[in-house]
Protein backbone atom coordinates (compact mmCIF):
# COMPACT_ATOMS: atom_id res chain seq x y z
CA UNK A 1 0.00 0.00 0.00
CA UNK A 2 2.81 2.41 0.92
CA UNK A 3 4.42 1.82 -2.46
CA UNK A 4 1.65 3.44 -4.49
CA UNK A 5 1.18 7.19 -4.76
CA UNK A 6 -2.33 7.04 -3.33
CA UNK A 7 -1.36 4.74 -0.48
CA UNK A 8 1.58 6.95 0.37
CA UNK A 9 -0.66 10.02 0.51
CA UNK A 10 -3.10 8.25 2.84
CA UNK A 11 -0.31 7.17 5.21
CA UNK A 12 1.25 10.66 5.20
CA UNK A 13 -2.21 12.13 5.89
CA UNK A 14 -2.71 9.77 8.84
CA UNK A 15 0.76 10.58 10.22
CA UNK A 16 0.09 14.33 9.88
CA UNK A 17 -3.18 13.91 11.78
CA UNK A 18 -1.26 12.01 14.47
CA UNK A 19 1.22 14.87 14.64
CA UNK A 20 -1.59 17.41 15.08
CA UNK A 21 -3.13 15.12 17.73
CA UNK A 22 0.20 15.01 19.53
CA UNK A 23 0.48 18.82 19.45
CA UNK A 24 -3.08 19.10 20.83
CA UNK A 25 -2.26 16.60 23.58
CA UNK A 26 0.92 18.51 24.48
CA UNK A 27 -1.18 21.67 24.69
CA UNK A 28 -3.29 20.13 27.47
CA UNK A 29 -0.33 19.19 29.68
CA UNK A 30 -0.11 20.69 33.14
CA UNK A 31 3.13 21.49 34.96
CA UNK A 32 4.69 18.60 36.92
CA UNK A 33 7.29 20.15 39.25
CA UNK A 34 8.51 16.75 40.59
CA UNK A 35 9.45 15.85 36.98
CA UNK A 36 11.17 19.20 36.51
CA UNK A 37 8.29 20.67 34.48
CA UNK A 38 7.65 24.00 36.20
CA UNK A 39 4.87 26.46 35.32
CA UNK A 40 6.13 28.73 32.55
CA UNK A 41 5.02 31.79 30.62
CA UNK A 42 1.85 30.20 29.21
CA UNK A 43 0.68 29.00 32.62
CA UNK A 44 1.50 32.31 34.32
CA UNK A 45 -0.32 34.38 31.71
CA UNK A 46 -3.38 32.14 32.08
CA UNK A 47 -3.58 32.34 35.87
CA UNK A 48 -0.64 33.66 37.86
CA UNK A 49 -2.44 33.51 41.21
CA UNK A 50 -2.84 29.74 40.92
CA UNK A 51 0.91 29.28 41.41
CA UNK A 52 1.52 31.43 44.53
CA UNK A 53 4.30 29.85 46.57
CA UNK A 54 5.34 27.52 43.74
CA UNK A 55 8.57 27.42 41.77
CA UNK A 56 8.00 28.91 38.31
CA UNK A 57 10.01 29.93 35.27
CA UNK A 58 9.43 33.07 33.25
CA UNK A 59 11.04 34.90 30.37
CA UNK A 60 10.44 38.40 29.13
CA UNK A 61 11.83 41.75 28.06
CA UNK A 62 12.99 44.06 30.87
CA UNK A 63 10.71 47.11 30.98
CA UNK A 64 12.22 48.89 33.99
CA UNK A 65 15.11 48.22 36.35
CA UNK A 66 13.98 49.76 39.63
CA UNK A 67 12.06 47.67 40.40
CA UNK A 68 12.88 45.11 37.74
CA UNK A 69 9.75 44.52 35.66
CA UNK A 70 9.58 42.19 32.70
CA UNK A 71 6.82 41.89 30.17
CA UNK A 72 6.00 38.57 28.67
CA UNK A 73 3.78 38.21 25.64
CA UNK A 74 1.89 35.09 24.68
CA UNK A 75 0.29 35.15 21.26
CA UNK A 76 -1.05 38.30 19.69
CA UNK A 77 -2.94 39.65 22.69
CA UNK A 78 -2.03 38.23 26.09
CA UNK A 79 0.68 40.01 28.03
CA UNK A 80 1.78 39.81 31.63
CA UNK A 81 4.01 42.18 33.55
CA UNK A 82 6.02 40.55 36.31
CA UNK A 83 8.05 42.20 39.03
CA UNK A 84 11.28 40.36 39.78
CA UNK A 85 12.76 40.67 43.27
CA UNK A 86 15.92 39.25 44.82
CA UNK A 87 17.65 39.40 41.43
CA UNK A 88 21.38 38.62 41.79
CA UNK A 89 22.44 39.96 38.40
CA UNK A 90 22.48 43.44 36.88
CA UNK A 91 20.00 44.00 34.06
CA UNK A 92 19.32 46.79 31.61
CA UNK A 93 16.12 47.96 30.04
CA UNK A 94 15.50 45.94 26.88
CA UNK A 95 17.36 42.81 28.06
CA UNK A 96 15.68 39.45 27.58
CA UNK A 97 15.57 38.03 31.11
CA UNK A 98 15.03 34.37 31.98
CA UNK A 99 14.22 33.74 35.61
CA UNK A 100 13.46 30.81 37.91
CA UNK A 101 12.01 31.46 41.33
CA UNK A 102 8.97 31.47 43.60
CA UNK A 103 5.71 33.11 42.54
CA UNK A 104 4.61 35.70 45.08
CA UNK A 105 1.54 37.89 45.40
CA UNK A 106 1.21 40.91 43.17
CA UNK A 107 2.59 39.26 40.01
CA UNK A 108 6.01 39.04 41.64
CA UNK A 109 8.70 36.40 41.28
CA UNK A 110 11.33 35.95 43.95
CA UNK A 111 14.33 35.02 41.85
CA UNK A 112 16.52 32.00 42.63
CA UNK A 113 18.47 31.92 39.39
CA UNK A 114 18.37 34.21 36.40
CA UNK A 115 20.35 35.19 33.32
CA UNK A 116 19.96 37.55 30.41
CA UNK A 117 20.13 36.91 26.69
CA UNK A 118 21.80 39.76 24.81
CA UNK A 119 19.34 41.30 22.24
CA UNK A 120 21.59 40.75 19.17
CA UNK A 121 21.78 37.07 20.13
CA UNK A 122 18.20 36.42 19.06
CA UNK A 123 18.80 37.94 15.61
CA UNK A 124 22.01 35.92 15.33
CA UNK A 125 20.07 32.72 16.12
CA UNK A 126 17.35 33.53 13.56
CA UNK A 127 19.85 34.46 10.83
CA UNK A 128 22.07 31.41 11.21
CA UNK A 129 19.04 29.13 11.50
CA UNK A 130 17.71 30.38 8.15
CA UNK A 131 21.17 29.77 6.69
CA UNK A 132 21.23 26.21 8.06
CA UNK A 133 17.74 25.48 6.73
CA UNK A 134 18.63 26.81 3.26
CA UNK A 135 21.81 24.73 3.15
CA UNK A 136 19.89 21.51 3.83
CA UNK A 137 17.17 22.49 1.35
CA UNK A 138 19.75 23.12 -1.40
CA UNK A 139 21.45 19.79 -0.70
CA UNK A 140 18.09 17.99 -0.80
CA UNK A 141 17.30 19.53 -4.20
CA UNK A 142 20.77 18.61 -5.46
CA UNK A 143 20.73 15.02 -4.23
CA UNK A 144 17.07 13.99 -4.27
CA UNK A 145 14.17 14.55 -6.65
CA UNK A 146 10.43 14.44 -6.23
CA UNK A 147 8.59 12.03 -8.49
CA UNK A 148 5.19 13.58 -9.25
CA UNK A 149 3.76 10.34 -10.58
CA UNK A 150 4.46 8.21 -7.54
CA UNK A 151 4.54 10.99 -4.95
CA UNK A 152 7.91 9.98 -3.59
CA UNK A 153 11.50 11.12 -3.27
CA UNK A 154 14.23 9.40 -5.27
CA UNK A 155 17.97 9.74 -5.19
CA UNK A 156 19.27 11.57 -8.24
CA UNK A 157 21.51 9.57 -10.53
CA UNK A 158 23.72 12.63 -11.03
CA UNK A 159 24.15 15.65 -8.79
CA UNK A 160 21.76 18.41 -9.73
CA UNK A 161 23.81 21.53 -9.22
CA UNK A 162 21.65 24.48 -8.26
CA UNK A 163 24.44 26.91 -9.18
CA UNK A 164 24.74 25.44 -12.69
CA UNK A 165 20.98 25.62 -13.12
CA UNK A 166 20.87 29.29 -12.06
CA UNK A 167 23.80 30.11 -14.40
CA UNK A 168 22.03 28.35 -17.29
CA UNK A 169 18.80 30.22 -16.58
CA UNK A 170 20.65 33.56 -16.40
CA UNK A 171 22.39 32.84 -19.66
CA UNK A 172 19.04 31.96 -21.28
CA UNK A 173 17.63 35.28 -20.12
CA UNK A 174 20.70 37.11 -21.42
CA UNK A 175 20.61 35.51 -24.85
CA UNK A 176 16.86 35.53 -25.28
CA UNK A 177 16.05 31.95 -24.34
CA UNK A 178 18.74 30.36 -26.48
Amino acid sequence: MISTGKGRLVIVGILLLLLVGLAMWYGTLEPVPRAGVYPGNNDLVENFDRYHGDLVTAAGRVQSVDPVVIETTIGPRDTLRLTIVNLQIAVQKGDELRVFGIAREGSTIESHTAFTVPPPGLWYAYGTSVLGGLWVLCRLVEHWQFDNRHWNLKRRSARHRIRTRIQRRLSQLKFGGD
Partner: protein
Amino acid sequence: MPDLLAHVLLAYALFGALSWRIEWINAQYVTVGMAGAVIPDLSKADLFIDDSLIEQVLEIPFDWFALHTAGGVLISVLIGTVLVEHDERKRVFGLLSVGAATHLLADSFLRTASGRSFSVLWPLSRYQPPTPGLYLSTEPGPTVIALALALLVYLISRHRTDELATQP
Protein backbone atom coordinates in the same frame (compact mmCIF):
# COMPACT_ATOMS: atom_id res chain seq x y z
CA MET B 1 22.30 22.95 20.64
CA PRO B 2 22.15 26.36 19.61
CA ASP B 3 20.95 27.49 16.24
CA LEU B 4 19.91 25.32 13.32
CA LEU B 5 23.16 25.94 11.45
CA ALA B 6 25.13 24.38 14.32
CA HIS B 7 22.82 21.35 14.29
CA VAL B 8 23.22 20.70 10.57
CA LEU B 9 26.98 21.31 10.71
CA LEU B 10 27.24 18.78 13.51
CA ALA B 11 25.16 16.28 11.52
CA TYR B 12 27.33 16.90 8.44
CA ALA B 13 30.44 16.17 10.53
CA LEU B 14 28.93 13.06 12.13
CA PHE B 15 27.58 11.46 8.95
CA GLY B 16 30.65 12.54 6.96
CA ALA B 17 32.84 10.74 9.50
CA LEU B 18 30.53 7.70 9.50
CA SER B 19 30.86 7.53 5.70
CA TRP B 20 34.54 6.63 6.17
CA ARG B 21 33.46 3.40 7.89
CA ILE B 22 30.04 2.69 6.37
CA GLU B 23 30.45 2.43 2.64
CA TRP B 24 26.87 3.13 1.54
CA ILE B 25 26.74 6.52 3.29
CA ASN B 26 27.46 8.83 0.36
CA ALA B 27 26.75 12.58 0.03
CA GLN B 28 23.08 11.86 -0.69
CA TYR B 29 22.66 9.97 2.56
CA VAL B 30 24.67 12.58 4.48
CA THR B 31 22.01 15.04 3.28
CA VAL B 32 19.27 12.79 4.72
CA GLY B 33 21.07 12.75 8.07
CA MET B 34 21.31 16.55 7.97
CA ALA B 35 17.58 16.75 7.19
CA GLY B 36 17.00 14.60 10.26
CA ALA B 37 18.85 17.17 12.34
CA VAL B 38 16.36 19.81 11.13
CA ILE B 39 13.27 17.83 12.21
CA PRO B 40 13.01 18.90 15.89
CA ASP B 41 13.20 22.55 14.82
CA LEU B 42 9.92 22.16 12.93
CA SER B 43 8.58 23.18 16.34
CA LYS B 44 9.89 26.67 15.52
CA ALA B 45 6.77 27.01 13.37
CA ASP B 46 5.46 28.86 16.40
CA LEU B 47 7.50 31.86 15.27
CA PHE B 48 5.17 32.10 12.25
CA ILE B 49 1.92 30.73 13.70
CA ASP B 50 1.83 31.15 17.44
CA ASP B 51 0.39 28.30 19.54
CA SER B 52 -2.00 30.61 21.33
CA LEU B 53 -3.26 32.02 18.02
CA ILE B 54 -4.20 28.48 16.94
CA GLU B 55 -5.78 27.87 20.34
CA GLN B 56 -7.81 31.07 20.13
CA VAL B 57 -8.92 30.70 16.51
CA LEU B 58 -9.63 26.95 16.47
CA GLU B 59 -10.51 26.75 20.17
CA ILE B 60 -8.35 23.66 20.70
CA PRO B 61 -5.32 23.16 22.95
CA PHE B 62 -2.15 23.26 20.86
CA ASP B 63 1.59 23.36 21.40
CA TRP B 64 4.13 23.10 18.57
CA PHE B 65 6.75 21.96 21.08
CA ALA B 66 5.36 18.41 20.77
CA LEU B 67 7.42 18.26 17.56
CA HIS B 68 10.55 18.75 19.65
CA THR B 69 10.03 15.55 21.65
CA ALA B 70 10.73 11.88 20.89
CA GLY B 71 7.08 11.27 19.93
CA GLY B 72 6.83 14.19 17.53
CA VAL B 73 10.23 13.39 16.04
CA LEU B 74 9.29 9.72 15.51
CA ILE B 75 6.13 10.63 13.56
CA SER B 76 8.04 13.22 11.49
CA VAL B 77 10.75 10.64 10.74
CA LEU B 78 8.05 8.16 9.66
CA ILE B 79 6.64 10.76 7.25
CA GLY B 80 10.11 11.17 5.72
CA THR B 81 10.50 7.39 5.55
CA VAL B 82 7.16 6.83 3.82
CA LEU B 83 8.09 9.41 1.18
CA VAL B 84 11.05 7.39 -0.17
CA GLU B 85 11.09 4.19 -2.18
CA HIS B 86 10.69 0.86 -0.45
CA ASP B 87 14.34 -0.23 -0.68
CA GLU B 88 15.56 3.09 0.79
CA ARG B 89 13.32 3.07 3.84
CA LYS B 90 15.55 1.30 6.38
CA ARG B 91 18.49 3.58 5.60
CA VAL B 92 16.42 6.76 5.53
CA PHE B 93 14.65 5.86 8.77
CA GLY B 94 17.99 5.25 10.47
CA LEU B 95 19.63 8.41 9.15
CA LEU B 96 16.69 10.67 9.95
CA SER B 97 16.41 9.17 13.44
CA VAL B 98 20.11 9.55 14.26
CA GLY B 99 20.15 13.09 12.81
CA ALA B 100 17.14 14.10 14.90
CA ALA B 101 18.62 12.41 17.98
CA THR B 102 21.81 14.50 17.71
CA HIS B 103 19.60 17.61 17.69
CA LEU B 104 17.64 16.55 20.79
CA LEU B 105 20.82 15.53 22.60
CA ALA B 106 22.59 18.82 21.84
CA ASP B 107 19.49 20.79 22.88
CA SER B 108 19.35 18.96 26.19
CA PHE B 109 22.61 20.74 27.10
CA LEU B 110 21.12 24.22 26.62
CA ARG B 111 21.19 26.61 29.54
CA THR B 112 17.84 27.21 31.23
CA ALA B 113 16.88 29.24 34.28
CA SER B 114 15.43 26.22 36.10
CA GLY B 115 18.40 23.97 35.34
CA ARG B 116 16.09 21.43 33.66
CA SER B 117 16.07 20.79 29.93
CA PHE B 118 12.87 19.56 28.27
CA SER B 119 10.69 16.46 28.16
CA VAL B 120 12.90 14.66 25.64
CA LEU B 121 11.12 11.30 25.89
CA TRP B 122 7.54 12.54 25.83
CA PRO B 123 4.97 10.96 25.48
CA LEU B 124 6.78 8.12 27.27
CA SER B 125 7.75 10.42 30.15
CA ARG B 126 7.32 14.05 31.19
CA TYR B 127 10.65 13.98 33.04
CA GLN B 128 12.91 16.90 32.21
CA PRO B 129 16.51 15.87 32.92
CA PRO B 130 18.91 18.36 34.50
CA THR B 131 20.92 20.29 31.93
CA PRO B 132 24.60 21.13 32.34
CA GLY B 133 23.74 24.51 30.78
CA LEU B 134 26.72 24.52 28.45
CA TYR B 135 25.42 27.19 26.07
CA LEU B 136 22.55 29.38 24.95
CA SER B 137 20.88 29.01 21.58
CA THR B 138 21.89 32.59 20.86
CA GLU B 139 25.65 32.14 21.34
CA PRO B 140 27.97 31.71 18.35
CA GLY B 141 30.50 29.52 20.25
CA PRO B 142 28.86 26.13 19.54
CA THR B 143 28.37 27.04 15.87
CA VAL B 144 32.07 27.88 15.55
CA ILE B 145 33.02 24.51 17.08
CA ALA B 146 30.54 22.67 14.82
CA LEU B 147 31.90 24.58 11.80
CA ALA B 148 35.48 23.59 12.67
CA LEU B 149 34.42 19.92 13.01
CA ALA B 150 32.51 20.02 9.70
CA LEU B 151 35.47 21.63 7.94
CA LEU B 152 37.83 19.01 9.34
CA VAL B 153 35.57 16.17 8.17
CA TYR B 154 35.19 17.83 4.75
CA LEU B 155 38.97 18.11 4.31
CA ILE B 156 39.64 14.55 5.45
CA SER B 157 36.87 13.23 3.16
CA ARG B 158 38.32 15.13 0.21
CA HIS B 159 41.80 13.82 0.97
CA ARG B 160 40.44 10.24 1.10
CA THR B 161 38.62 10.72 -2.22
CA ASP B 162 41.79 12.11 -3.85
CA GLU B 163 43.80 9.17 -2.50
CA LEU B 164 41.30 6.65 -3.88
CA ALA B 165 41.32 8.43 -7.25
CA THR B 166 45.11 8.24 -7.54
CA GLN B 167 45.27 4.56 -6.60
CA PRO B 168 46.10 2.36 -9.61
